[in-house]
Structure formats: C-alpha cells, structure tokens
C-alpha cells in the first residue's frame, strides 16, 4: 500500500504539465493579443498589480478557472496521499518505520549505485506533510491573491514545479537525489522571485539569491564528494551505518567528519539564509507574497535544517562542527532579530524574522537537539506562513502598500486578517499555549542543558526571543492598532480579503495555536509525542552523544521557562510602551542614538560591506585575470620571449601580422614547457 508514495511528488508534476499546457497554448496567445491591442491604443502596461484592467476578456477566460482548480487540487491530492502514507507508516512498530520505494536505477558504475528512490521515515513524513499541507493552503490563497495577474497560469506552473522539487528533496533516498531537489527548488525560487521581471529590483533580487546560493552549493557539492570518497556511498540507508562502522574502526577520523559536515553546512547556510550568506533572503521578498510564504518561509529555506537533521549521525561525530552550527545559528537568531526592529516594510520585517527563526533551528541542531529543530521547523511553517499570507492580505487591501508607518487601525477594516495575524504573532513571540512557545522553549532548554550546549547559547536564544516579541508587536501595534494613518484614497479602497484568501488564514491560525500540542514536554504534563515519533531517526546518532555532565532539576527547567515567558512579555510591553502609549518615543530614541539607529536601520551595512569586499573585488579580479591571460601573457611575456627568439627587429613586424603571431608564440612556449617538463621534469 505504501507504494502509492510515488504519487506524492507525481501529482504536483501532473499539475506542472496541465498548467504548462494552459500557460503555453491559452495564456500566452491571449497575453500577446492584449499586448498588441494595448500598443495600438497607446496604453502603457499597468502597474505590476494589474488593477484597472480586470475587465479585459483575458481575465474571464475559462482557462483561468481551470488553472484555479488544477493548481491547488493536485497539491491537495498530494497532501491526502501523503497523509495516507504517513498513517500507514505510523501503524508499524517504531523500528520498522522506514520505507524505501525504488523507482529505477539512476547512476550505476561498478559498485557505486544511486537510484531514483523515495525514502519515507518519520523525518520525511513530517516534511512531506508540512510541504503539501501548508503548500496546499498557500496554493488556495494564491487563487485569490493572484487573480488579477496576467501570468496566472505561469505562476501556478512555477508553484507546482516548486512543490514537486521540494518533495523530491525531502523524499530523496540519497544525497545525490537530494541535491537534485536542492538545485531545482533554487531554480524555482529564482524564477518566482523574478516573477515580476519588469521590476528591476525583482530581477536584481533573483540574481542575488542565485549568486549567494552558488557559494552554498559549491560547499554542498564538495561535501558530497568528500563523503563519497570517504564512505563510498551516498545512499542514506548505507552511508550512516557505514560511517558509524568506520567511526568505531577508526577509519573515519574526526577531522574528516568535521570537513564533510562543515562543507555540507556551507550549503545549508546558503539555502537557509544564515550568516554570512543570509543577504539574499530579505531581497527575495520582491516575489509575490504567497511565494514568500511558501518558499521563503515555510519550506525551501528549511531545507538546510532538514539536511543537517538528516545527517545527524555525521554531525554528532564532530563536536567542532556542532559548535560552529550552534554559534552561527544563535548569532543569526539574534543578529537578524535586531535588524527586524528597524525595518518598516512589513514583508522585510517578516523576512528578517524568518532568518532569525531559522537561526533558532540551527541552534537546536548545533546543540544536538535535532528533534527540537524539526519541531520548530514545523510550528514555524504554520505561523510564519500565516504571517506572510496576512501581510499579503493587507497588501491586497492597500493596493500594494507595505509600509507600516502608513497603516494603523486596520483592525476594524480587516477583522479576520487582524485576528489571525495576531494569533500568529502570539505564537512566534512564545506566549504559553501557542505552538511557537513549545518549540522555542524546547530549543532554549536544550541549548542550556545539552552536553553540546552551554549557557551562552541559551542567552543568545533568550535575548533573541525578547527582541522577537518586541519587533513583532511593534509591527502589530503600528499596523492594526491606533488611529489610521491611511491616505484618503486608500481608506476608500481598504477591504477584507475574499473568502478564498481568509479561509486558509483561519486554518493556519488554528494550526498556529494547536500545532504545538503534539510536543508538550513532560514537565508540563505532556508526553512529547513528536519527539518519540522522530526518535528512530536520531537513535543511531544518539549513541555518539556523551552522557550529560550534569543533571538538571525540574525546577530549573520550569524556572527557565517562566523566565522566557517573562522576557517575551517584557518585549511586548516595551513595544506597547513605545508604539501605543508614547508613540513619540521611537523618534526620540532614534535622535538620541543616531549612529546606532542608522546602523541598525541599514542592516548593519552588510550588503554594502559585501559589495565592497566581495562582489567588487571578485569582479575586478576576474577582469584582471582575463586581462592577465589575454594581455599580459599574450602581449607581454609572449612578445618578450618572441623578441628574444626572433630577434628584436621582429617586434615591428608583429604589429603588422596582428595577433596570430603572438598566438603562435604562445603555442610554441607551451610546447617548449611541455617538452622540457617531460624530459627534465
């Protein structure tokens, strides 16, 4: 029965095909016709949100209705199949909860074999449910959100394609296939960031995402080769047992394990936007909002966390790497949160918030608490998707306005958006009872108590939690509470979003509230079923974990929990104080510490620094290298040698014969070197 697993990725692929046909054979001819009509009428292309042209027949063509059905329904069906598969898997005893479906052999040479095969275990179960479940809701939401877009079918092609690629990534049974998904989600992400390609900022952002991820993928590929070289396989079912064997036999040294895991982690920092490669994610918000919700918050960016958790056996072999992961995760969590404080664009605040929350997940992995990381991955998918979709709903109502300084009082205009957004804010701030509370608290406690953890990590996480509560409530207060600061025209325009958008919001709100109940820790009377469910995945690695040096008392755990709640409450109160009670305060603070404010508001000038110390030098360097080869080697050394060889008088002749002469001399020099090398070398 589990063999139906192949349907999970296949259904979104079917969507790609159907929507692709519709995009190509219906949408494009219609768009072209409209384009030429507009040209004739002298109408300029309307703004990217396309208001004002909805009466065009293009927007009422039957193909749109069909796309609205096929786009979301394939993902919904995939969710259903995934649910069935997971339920079957859960029926099995815990240690037999692994299923591998071999579709066909992909690459085979000698003893090396890699198959296109799907791998279902508790870890990938969680991932496929999140990807298809949240993905389905976002697809539905998109039907409403993108209704006025010209490239409607094209959008769903990309979105379906992304879902397919992401499912390949999480269901892959080996690193190579995982890499296929890894690259493919990246490609979809660039396509979707640059969806409004007419906008220069959008295409620049697509480029940036692309280049930054190149650095990460380079690390990933090298890590993969090194792993293959050491262990001789890339299949999950072989790599981990074999690595453990070699570890015990001493043939896999800590140094090699560190190298492999660090290289893989470089890949993760690129995809999951961690220091120093996080810079692309905030700019990626140029894409349509549902895309931000799906790709840049709920799923793709968590691929790095998934990969690290999947490789837990390898990571636990190298305490050095774990420390690096934890430091980078913790630092990113705090660093990005502080940037979020001074941003005024709703989506940008959420983007930095995502970077920060991903930092939490890596912090968890770094202290060896992979379950906690995956738990937070799941709850974060719920509430962050909700926050993004909520901001999309606001954007929809305000004709694209995202500056929270120009909002205010939206509560009464958009009650559903407000309430769902508010619940998600409570969840991310770590208010007890909401999903984010359980997962974040688990991470903080493990950061404190794990043998790989330490008080510093706990402190980083807790301070970040304070900042998080502050910037989230700052946004809520500024956008939804108080007097409205909307311009008169916008006040006319503002409206609650249609049902097709608000219903997904409500479902996600429910999940944001109750999503944490699967992982209530024993200390609060729960049994942390989530952790037990994932246990078989991390069991092998657990053998590598040293025994905890201290035993911590329950009262300490409870005490820290209460402290975390107080810290969050303090953050909320501070936001209330600044933005509700004394709204003139923020301006004063900014005036008083202009340098500090400037630095934070400009995101610590990291983009500028990167440009100055990385982008520009690399560009200059490649131009330089090219010039060296072309100009120096050819015209300089070559001519010099040529002169020596052929006599100085020949230098004048060279000018007449052009470059052929110099080319020939270069050939000659190469030949001399090669002959000399072979004879005397």
């Amino acid at each position, binding site marked *: 029965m589990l063999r139906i697993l192949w349907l999970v990725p296949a259904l979104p692929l079917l969507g790609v095909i159907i929507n692709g046909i519709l995009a190509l054979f219906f949408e494009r001819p219609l768009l072209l016709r409209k384009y030429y009509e507009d040209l004739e009428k002298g109408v300029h292309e309307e703004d990217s949100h396309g208001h004002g042209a909805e009466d065009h027949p293009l927007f009422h063509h039957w193909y749109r209705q069909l796309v609205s059905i096929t786009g979301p329904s394939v993902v919904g069906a995939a969710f259903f199949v995934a649910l069935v598969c997971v339920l079957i898997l859960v029926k099995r005893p815990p240690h037999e909860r692994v299923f591998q479906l071999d579709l066909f052999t992909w690459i085979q040479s000698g003893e090396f074999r890699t198959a296109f095969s799907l791998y279902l275990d508790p870890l990938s179960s969680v991932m496929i449910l999140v990807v298809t479940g949240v993905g389905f809701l976002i697809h539905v939401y998109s039907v409403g959100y993108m209704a006025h877009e010209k490239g409607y079918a094209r959008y769903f092609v990309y979105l379906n394609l992304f879902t397919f690629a992401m499912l390949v990534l999480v269901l892959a049974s080996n690193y190579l296939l995982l890499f296929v998904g890894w690259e493919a989600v990246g490609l979809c992400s660039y396509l979707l960031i640059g969806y409004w390609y007419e906008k220069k900022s959008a295409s620049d952002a697509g480029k940036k995402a692309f280049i930054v991820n190149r*650095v990460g993928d380079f690390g990933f590929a090298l890590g993969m080769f090194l792993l293959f070289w050491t262990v001789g396989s890339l299949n999950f079912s072989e790599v981990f047992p074999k690595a453990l064997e070699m570890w015990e036999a001493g043939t896999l040294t800590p140094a090699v394990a560190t190298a492999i895991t660090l290289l893989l982690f470089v890949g993760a920092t690129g995809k999951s936007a961690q220091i120093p490669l996080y810079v692309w994610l905030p700019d990626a918000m140029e894409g349509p909002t549902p895309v931000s919700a799906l790709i840049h918050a709920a799923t793709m960016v968590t691929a790095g966390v998934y990969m690290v958790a999947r490789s837990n056996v390898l990571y636990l072999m190298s305490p050095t790497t774990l420390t690096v992961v934890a430091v980078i995760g913790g630092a990113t969590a705090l660093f990005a949160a502080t940037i979020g404080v001074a941003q005024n664009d709703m989506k940008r605040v959420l983007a930095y918030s995502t970077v920060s929350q991903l930092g939490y997940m890596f912090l968890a992995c770094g202290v060896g608490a992979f379950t906690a990381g995956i738990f937070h991955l799941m709850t974060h998918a719920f509430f962050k998707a909700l926050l993004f979709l909520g901001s999309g709903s606001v954007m929809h109502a305000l004709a694209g306005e995202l500056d929270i300084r120009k909002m205010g009082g939206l509560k009464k205009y958009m009650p559903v958006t407000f309430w769902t957004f508010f619940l998600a804010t409570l969840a991310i701030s770590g208010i007890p009872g909401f999903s984010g509370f359980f997962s974040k608290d688990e991470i903080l406690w493990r950061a404190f108590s794990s043998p790989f953890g330490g008080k510093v990590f706990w402190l980083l996480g807790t301070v970040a939690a304070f900042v998080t509560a502050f910037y989230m409530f700052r946004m809520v207060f500024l956008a939804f509470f108080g007097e409205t600061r909307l311009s008169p025209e916008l006040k006319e325009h503002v409206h609650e979003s249609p049902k097709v958008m608000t219903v997904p919001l409500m479902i996600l709100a429910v999940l944001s509230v109750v999503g944490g109940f699967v992982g209530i820790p024993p200390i609060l009377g729960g049994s942390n079923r989530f952790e037990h469910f994932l246990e078989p995945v991390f069991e092998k690695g657990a053998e590598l974990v040293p025994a905890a040096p201290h035993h911590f008392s329950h009262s300490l755990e409870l005490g820290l929990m209460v402290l975390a709640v107080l810290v969050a409450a303090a953050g909320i109160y501070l936001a209330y104080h600044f933005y509700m009670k004394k709204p003139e305060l923020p301006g004063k603070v900014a005036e008083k510490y202009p340098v500090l404010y400037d630095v934070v508001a400009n995101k610590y000038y990291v983009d500028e620094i990167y440009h100055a110390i990385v982008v520009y030098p690399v560009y200059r360097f490649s131009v330089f290298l090219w010039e060296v080869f072309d100009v120096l080697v050819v015209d300089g050394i070559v001519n010099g040698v040529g002169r020596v060889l052929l006599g100085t008088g020949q230098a004048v002749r060279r000018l007449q014969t052009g470059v052929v002469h110099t080319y020939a001399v270069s050939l000659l020099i190469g030949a001399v070197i090669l002959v000399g090398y072979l004879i005397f070398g």
Partner: protein
Amino acid sequence: MDLQSILLSLKAIVPEMILTATGCLVLLYDLLIPEENRGVHAGISAVGVITALFSVLWFGSERIEAFSGMLAQDTFGSFFTVVVLVSLLLTLMLSRSYNDWEGIQKGEFYALLLFSSVGMLVMAKATDMMTIFLGLELLSIPIYVLVGFDRKRLSSVEGALKYFLLGAFATGFLLYGMALLYAATGATSLSGIAAFAGKENVFGNTLFLAGTALLFVGFGFKVSLVPFHMWTPDAYQGAPTPVTAFMSAGPKAAAFAAVIRVLVVAFPESHPFLLKGLWVVAALTMTVGNVSALVQDDVKRMLAYSSIAHAGYVLVGLVSGDRLGGQAAMYYLFVYSLMNIGAFAIVMLLSEGEERGYAIENFRGVGFRYPVLGALMTVFLVSLGGIPPTAGFVGKFYLFSAAVKKGLILLTVIGVLNSAASVYYYLRVVVYMYMLPERAEEVRPRPVGVGVALALFIATVGVIALGIFPKGLLSFAESSILSIFLS
C-alpha cells in the same frame, strides 16, 4: 593483402564510405539544380548520415582489424562514430535555415561537412599514427574552409585565416612528434609503440619523451587545451554558427578519441609525469576557460570560452587514467555535443544574423516573448552549468567522482569551483532572458523551420533523458572503453 582481407577491411569503413559517397553526390547534384533549391542538399546529406548511423548500429560492434592494422573497427570507434554522426546530423538540420538567412546556401558547404566528418571517423578508429594524422588532416582542412565560408564577412575570413595558420603550425608539432616517436621506437602503430615501451626504459629516452610531448601539443591544439587554445574564440566567433556548433562537438570528440586511444593503447603504463602534466593542463584549461567566459558580453564568444573549459573537464577524466575516468569522459563528450549544439541553435535563432552580432543585450526579455525558445535555452544552459537533473550534471558528477576515486582531491576541488563559477555566466543569459525588460526594439527570432525544430527536439530530449536515464549511454561507453582496454 589479399582480396578477402580487403573486403573485410572495407567493412570496417562502411560509414566513411557512405559519407564520402553522399558528399560526392551532393557536389554532383549541385550542378543540376537551380540556386534557390540548394537547401535540398541538407536533406540529401541527412539521409546519408542516417544511413551511416544505421550501418554503425548494424555491425559496429564487431571487431575488425583493417588495412594491416592501420585502422580498427571496435566498440570504442563506434561510440565516437555515433557522437560525430549525431553532431553532424544536428548541424545539418541547423545549417539549411542558417545558410538561407545568411545567403551562403551552397552545395560545397554540405560536402565539406561530410568530408570533414569522414576525417573524424578515421581518427576515432585509427590505430596507427599514420592514420591518426590522415584523419586529422582530413578533418581539419574542410573545417578551415567552413570557418571562412561566409567569405563576405570579415570576421569569418579572419577566424578562418587564424585557425588555418595556427592549425598548420600545430600540425607541424604533431608530425614532428610522430617522427620522433618513430625514430625512438621504430614503429608507427600504437601497439608497436606499446611493445617498445614495455621492453625498454623509455622514460630515460629523450627522443621518446620529446615525441610524446609534441604529440600532445598537436592534440592539445585540436581540443583547445590551455595554452594551445588561443585560436578558439576567434575561430568560433567568426565561423557560421552551425559550423561553430559542429566544431565544438564533432572534431573535439574525434580528437579526444585519438587521445584516449593513444593513452590507453600506446602508453598503457601511463607515464606518471605525463598524467601530472595533463593534471596541470586540465586545471589551467578549466580555469582560463571559465574566467575568460565570465567577462564576455557576447554570447557566442562566451560559449567559445566555455567550450575551452569543457575540454578541461573532459581532460579530468583522462587524468584519472583508469577505465572509469575514460568512460566518464566519453559520456561527457556525447552529452556535451547535444547541449552545446542546442545552445548554439538557440543563439542562432534569437539573434538577428551575424551582422548584428550576439551581444547579451539582445537577449533581454526574450524569455517571455518567446517562452519555448527561452525554456529550451535554459535547459541547455542549466545542463552546461552542471545543474541536476540534466545530463550535464550526471556527466560532471561522473568525471569528478572518477577523479575522487583516484584521490585527485585538489583537481576535483578546482573542477567543482570552476563549475560553480561557470553557472554564473550561463545563468546570466537566463537572467537577461527572464528578468530584464525587453529592449525597445523587439528581437524577432528567425522562423523556426522543421529541421531546426527537430534538432532542438532531439537535443532537448537527449539532455533531459540522459540526465534521468543515463544508464544506457553509460554502459555503451563502458563496453566501448573496455574494448580498447582489453584488446
């Protein structure tokens, strides 16, 4: 040689004979038809090529020592025969439309392509230095003419002249190398050289070493390895685009076939120095090719530099020096032909002729106006960049994992780094196509004819299918390389 063995020998060169006959037929028929009908030659040639392909599939796996050991038909030769013939077929499909647009529709064009391919096939099958040389010259001379075929265009003539002058120079090296090897060993056949090397301590023999080095200079020129690559950008840019596409695929594969055969058969206990020398050349070739491609603003020239880099990747497989590396190199040469010809085909369609050039600016926004062409170009570029799930990825993975297995970690790191950097300039074209607004004056691609469409279809399906199901081609490459390893 008795009649029996001559007949048997002829059986080894059936594809060559078919191509030669087709070439002659094209030349003769050219006299009979009016100028505007000359496109039909592409069709005639294609029929000939397809017939030749079938003949290879029919009895190409049988091993025949032909013409007293000058030439051999084996699976290895057949593999490269298929690579060359497929590249030739795709090129013919592109040429017909291109020659119409550029006003160079002539029968000689097709005849020269066919004759040049005969040279390639001879080179792939040659087991003697004499036949290698014969094949190389037969390959080169028609290509020199083809590069300058558009003789009214200055860049075409310039490229042809440069290529010809330097080619003649390089041929000199090659021939001198062969002469020295003959002087050292007293043999011209590869097996004779191997027998000599097995008996004597050749590594102290200066004549032998100098001969080997010069031989590789000649080969290095043909496959454009650094520092023998200088001619490549000029010749590639000047040549009519279908010829450029063909040059990057067919002759390169044929020359590599000869290199592999020489390495495996004549130097079975590969001189470690030789491999170390090739190591340096491979690293240099990848790096110089990619770095130079990074700063190009002309897509055709960018692809020319990229083809240098790709020769470097293939060389990585040879540096591995074992069966796996050779197999990976062969797989890569095949898929490289497909994706590169595909990319050149789109470049040819989307530009407005040689006069207007191939500046990357011309590609602004065309991805949305012409989504199919844009999507196909993306597939080819993604494959060239080695991103899964395309054939280019599988090929690179194979090459580098062969190197990793041999412990060539540093070379692999250099290769992967190069590959990562190369994605930048490939995808830069995609960025221009999809993420920048169109130019004010719209690019109107040339009408896509049946031949071009078919070529694009074959290339695309090949690139994707070989990426997902690489097994068949890999085992073909495996049995091919075994056929010379064991003989």
